């Protein structure tokens, strides 16, 4: 009788264990039948929607890529996250926002996920650092890079290779007209072509300072001439943003801006592409993701004679040569406020998206740039578009803006104060940079970043 009782107990115990394990397993594997991804309204988002059809075929999970115009994109997802909304399961957010999203608990931490799935090893370390890591240097990850992007250049080969232009340029500047090998050379070329009487201008660069366009271009010249935005690990700004190199970089931007077409005070990606397409400038800057329009003969009459180059290096005021490219692009993160079923589906999508095969397909779509190292180095990627080799080169050079939660206030002060000097000519570069340095230092001071016991990882 006792034996039977023991056996019965063992059976009941085993059965209950099996049932609860199955229950857990079932709960763990419960996956929603659709996910919604939020991104900005542009060609790569259309590509992502088309690409995700493959995921739907494979898993049966529907993917909706909801797009918001760039003008309100960042605000929209911030408002939704403040409200704890579950409207989207994945947000492909700007790299600067990673700190804010991590600290305020809007995004799910993906450190274990990116390690387990091999994403951390497969993707470029620089991409993981800038797009997904917060705090910087602490190896905590919050996203999977979706769109790698950087500022690059398009130029008119027919004008650069024109024998008359070449001879006139060499006579005036003492060296051959060619693809710019330094920022100084780029300015000389802009000056050379600048001919407002004939409605032809020297260069198309950003003038808009409503969001980050002017700031992103400025950070390149500041760094190239020997300055910096600060130290991302110690949060020191003084000595970086207000040094001689930074002043030279901002002065350079102001000088270069004198050669843009009229009405460029609010120029962003549309305006620089438009100026190039309408044939009023010999070269224009833009994020690589916007360059497919220039490579397409249907949208650019000069597509056949359009060449591309990477942001050039520059010997700074200290005699050291530096090359810096401003980073664009975004990473995909999972929203904290969604159900477990939705999270499971979102993780499935992330895992699928990070696969080499998916990344290879992604890289062939116009304007979509992978951060997957093997795909990026493949011949297929390098030959897929004429600007892809420059994009690949830019990946080794790009640097980002501050990604701390205070970035928006820092960005606004920077854009406002430097914009007033660069675009409107108010004050001096030195004065503007000192003002920004003081404000940024004040922001960090007020939020305790300089306290001896401050730990950026404590959240």
């Amino acid at each position, binding site marked *: 009788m006792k034996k039977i009782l023991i056996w019965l107990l063992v059976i009941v115990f085993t059965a209950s264990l099996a049932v609860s394990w199955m229950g857990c397993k079932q709960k763990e594997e419960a996956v929603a039948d659709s996910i919604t991804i939020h991104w900005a309204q542009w060609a790569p988002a259309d590509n992502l929607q088309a690409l995700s059809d493959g995921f739907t075929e494979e898993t049966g999970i529907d993917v909706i890529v909801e797009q918001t115009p760039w003008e309100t994109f960042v*605000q929209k997802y911030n408002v939704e996250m403040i409200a704890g909304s579950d409207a989207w399961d994945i947000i492909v957010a700007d790299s600067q926002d990673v700190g804010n999203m991590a600290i305020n608990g809007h995004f799910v931490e993906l450190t274990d996920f990116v390690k387990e799935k091999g994403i951390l090893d497969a993707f470029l370390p620089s991409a993981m650092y800038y797009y997904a890591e917060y705090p910087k240097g602490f190896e905590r990850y919050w996203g999977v890079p979706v769109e790698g992007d950087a500022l690059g250049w398009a130029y008119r080969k027919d004008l650069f290779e024109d024998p008359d232009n070449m001879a006139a340029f060499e006579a005036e500047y003492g060296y051959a007209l060619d693809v710019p090998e330094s920022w100084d050379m780029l300015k000389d070329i802009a000056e050379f072509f600048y001919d407002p009487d004939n409605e032809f201008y020297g260069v198309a660069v950003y003038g808009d*300072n409503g969001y980050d366009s002017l700031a992103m271009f400025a950070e390149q010249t500041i760094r190239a001439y020997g300055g910096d935005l600060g130290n991302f690990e110690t949060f020191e700004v003084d000595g970086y943003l207000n040094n001689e190199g930074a002043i030279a970089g901002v002065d350079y931007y102001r000088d270069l801006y004198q050669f843009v*077409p009229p*009405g460029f*005070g609010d120029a962003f990606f549309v305006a620089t592409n438009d100026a190039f397409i*309408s044939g009023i400038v010999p070269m224009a800057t833009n994020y690589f993701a916007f360059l497919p329009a220039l490579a397409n003969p249907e949208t650019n009459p000069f597509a056949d004679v359009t060449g591309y180059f990477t942001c050039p290096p520059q010997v700074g005021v200290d005699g050291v040569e530096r090359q810096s490219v401003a980073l664009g692009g975004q990473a995909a993160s999972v929203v904290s406020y969604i159900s477990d079923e939705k999270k499971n589906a979102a993780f499935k999508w992330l895992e699928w998206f990070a696969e080499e095969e998916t990344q290879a397909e992604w890289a062939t779509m116009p304007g979509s740039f992978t951060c997957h190292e093997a795909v990026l180095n493949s011949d297929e990627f390098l030959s897929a578009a004429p600007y892809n080799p420059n994009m690949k080169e830019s990946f080794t050079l790009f640097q980002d803006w501050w990604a701390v*939660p205070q970035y*928006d206030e820092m960005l606004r002060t920077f854009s406002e104060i430097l914009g007033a000097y660069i675009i*409107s000519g108010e004050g001096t570069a030195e004065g503007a940079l000192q003002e920004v340095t003081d404000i940024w230092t004040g922001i960090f001071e007020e939020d305790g970043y300089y306290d001896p016991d401050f730990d950026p990882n404590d959240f």
Partner: protein
Amino acid sequence: MNNNPRKKRAENMAYRSMKDTTLLRIFVLPVIILLIVMNVFPLFWSLVLSFSDYSAKKTTNWGVNPEMIGTENYSQILSDPKMWNRFITTAKFVLLSVGLQMILGFGIALLLHQVKFFGKGFLTTLLILPMTMSPVIVGIMWKLFYNPNYGMFNMLLGLGKIDWTTDPNFNLFGVVIADVWMWTPFVMLLSIAGLSAVPQYLYEAAEIDRASWWYKFSRITMPMVYPLLLVALIFRTMEAFKIFDVVMGITGRGTTAPQLLSMYLYNVGFVTWQTSYGSALGYIMLIMIIAITSIFIKYLNRAKQ
């Protein structure tokens, strides 16, 4: 189904015994609740926030975010020289834009009222079209008109390459022109209504007395139209103070846009998420608008008397 006639009668009696005022309260209650939740509470809540240091972007933690800081936001706003420049720019915009709208609107109304011609009704309808458009569309449309490279505004007026959208010397005028274009018909419409209401016999009596045109205008037309013009002035002043959409469409929100208070309020409130600071600025603007419209309303009441 209730077929019991007694019960039915009792129910009817209950309805009948309900007072009109009770019924009224029942119907009004949902609206009152909605107003309190959607309007009154946010208004008072933003007033409380204006005395604190709070950012909607950060996690709410009482004592830290928000932290009550008294009148610091208000004193910071009022002691900032850049902010005073914004006040001046906004005042310039309101004066220029509303002033031109009043002059042009009333002038066009006078012309339309006095001159009789074929197709007058159709022309009036055409003239009011701008105010029926979405302000954002108007902004974007004027941005294209103003483009120094291909826009038709400079081209038609032979103004060369003037940059009406981002040049600090011209951008305020660029916005004023668009706003005047859009809202002059509103003043015109109210003026036409006022002019049509002037009794014809007053003019006939003045004609008999051989009164001059100026006498008829200053003693008959203006006093009769004055209250409606004041109404137009009140509406346009209030709207001009908080203009946002047209400016956003034309110049964007960068520093090359005219530094109007409403644009700055948007930037601090929804770009950098300085919620408390933005609330304080909102209240300062509210007080300014209330003060100015109170003066106009005082004149309006006098005109009625």
